[in-house]
């Protein structure tokens, strides 16, 4: 109950503020919140949810999970071997700095322009960086005594990886994974600016270009709600897998 009110308190306050401040707005691009709320059910009916939102979410899920697996795998390798890190890092940083709008056409050259592949790769490529970087740092900062313990008991490579390295790095992997989640949502939109005819992102951009501003706002709000929902889901998983970490850090006092 307390947690619920804490979670809802500020949003309700902000929404109230937005409602009040936009009430009499005549600005075309800042319509009253009331107008937006009215437009919401008309805009997101069964058809767009089925043909825009769900496929987008499916692509997001595939891209995100790909990034998670690839980021953790590559991050563990790069974090464990200094030579590999020295070899890869500049090249990775190079690609990391390239904006998706110019990178996507290159991806499309290989992965095709219209199918899911290019979009999924775009999402995965965006999500992978926070996961990769955090995994690398997490792997590097696993306690030395723990590593020595694993070595002295001659745990196999796999066991060390599974029970020591990945678990030790898991708090940081979670940091990266959480960060990647919202980036994934963003890239879900960006990827649909390209070679898409349907999708949540494509819909928002078409509203924007068609000057259907209240509808565009409903799309943005929908994105935010998806973000909240995904983050709640994430928290659930994190809560279970990182219970030891919260105990260790005596974080149970926190909500």
């Amino acid at each position, binding site marked *: 109950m307390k947690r619920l009110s804490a979670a809802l308190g500020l949003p309700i306050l902000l929404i109230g503020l937005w409602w009040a401040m936009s009430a009499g707005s005549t600005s075309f*691009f800042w319509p009253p919140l009331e107008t937006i709320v009215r437009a919401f059910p008309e805009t997101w009916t069964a058809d767009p949810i089925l043909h825009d939102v769900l496929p987008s979410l499916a692509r997001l899920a595939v891209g995100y999970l790909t990034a998670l697996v690839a980021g953790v795998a590559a991050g563990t390798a790069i974090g464990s071997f200094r030579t590999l890190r020295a070899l890869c*890092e500049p090249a990775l940083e*190079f690609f990391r700095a390239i904006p998706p*709008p*110019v990178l996507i056409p290159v991806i499309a050259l*290989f992965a095709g322009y219209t199918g899911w592949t290019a979009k999924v790769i775009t999402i995965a490529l965006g999500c992978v960086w926070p996961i990769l970087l955090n995994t690398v740092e997490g792997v590097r900062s696993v306690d030395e005594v723990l590593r020595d313990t694993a070595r002295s008991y001659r745990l196999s490579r796999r066991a060390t990886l599974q029970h020591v390295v990945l678990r030790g790095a898991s708090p940081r992997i979670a940091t990266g994974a959480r960060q990647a989640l919202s980036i994934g949502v963003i890239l879900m939109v960006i990827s649909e600016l390209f070679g898409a005819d349907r999708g949540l992102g494509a819909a928002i951009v078409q509203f924007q270009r068609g000057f259907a501003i209240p509808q565009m706002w409903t799309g943005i709000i929908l994105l935010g709600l998806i973000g909240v929902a995904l983050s709640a889901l994430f928290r659930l998983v994190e809560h279970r897998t990182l219970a030891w970490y919260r105990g260790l850090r005596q974080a149970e006092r926190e909500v």
Partner: protein
Amino acid sequence: MSATSKLDGPARFLGLAGLSLVVGVAEALPRLDVVDRRFLPPFSSMAVALGRQLALGDFWIALGQTLRGWALGLAVAMLAGVVFGVVIGSVPFLRAVTASTIEFLRPIPSVALIPLVVLIYGSQLQSALVLVVYAAFWQVLVQVLYGVADVDPVVRDTARSYRFSRWTVVRTVVWPTALPYVVTGFRLAAAVALILEITAELIIGVPGLGRSIGVAQSSGAVAETYALVIVVGIIGVLVNASARAVERRALRWHTSIRRDL
């Protein structure tokens, strides 16, 4: 120490080797007709186009504009991200209250905000700045929030038992603990800021490299486009190298660094 310098040479060499590999692949793929060279020219043509660019005054002006916008936005985002992160992270009540709002705001893509910033600022520097700050801020904030939560309880108790003031705790306990996360946040934010700066220039037409890319794109000048993109990538590499250098100094004490020696 000697160990560091012993490593630095090979590390740099290896890094260059890695980049050369990328260059090699970029040269080979079009030449071997794996991709159509009309759409992805071999690296050598990009390099030639880049050479032509470097001779132009306009290029350097655009580069300067991009770097200025990027650095400014990044600085603001870092400052705001660290301050908000430390404050929100240190006060459990604030953390609980803001969590849902943060999660709502984070996934809103900066590109969706473009019409709004244009409405307010047009294609001025500020438009890009708003987008850069908005996108980069979250990168730092999330890292700092997790970093602040990483404080060792024994360390925290030590600080409490000696009755350190709030400010001292932040300075001597929270900040050093969160620092590795801040560095990661910086590395993430630096790239995101660069991406948004370029994207804003590209789409809104804020002066800078991105606008040059946009012009090259809409002129069908493929090699020029990639030449400019390479410049962007190189900025990314340099930023990371400097972040690593800072990290080696500031985090000498950290497990990840001291083990490396």
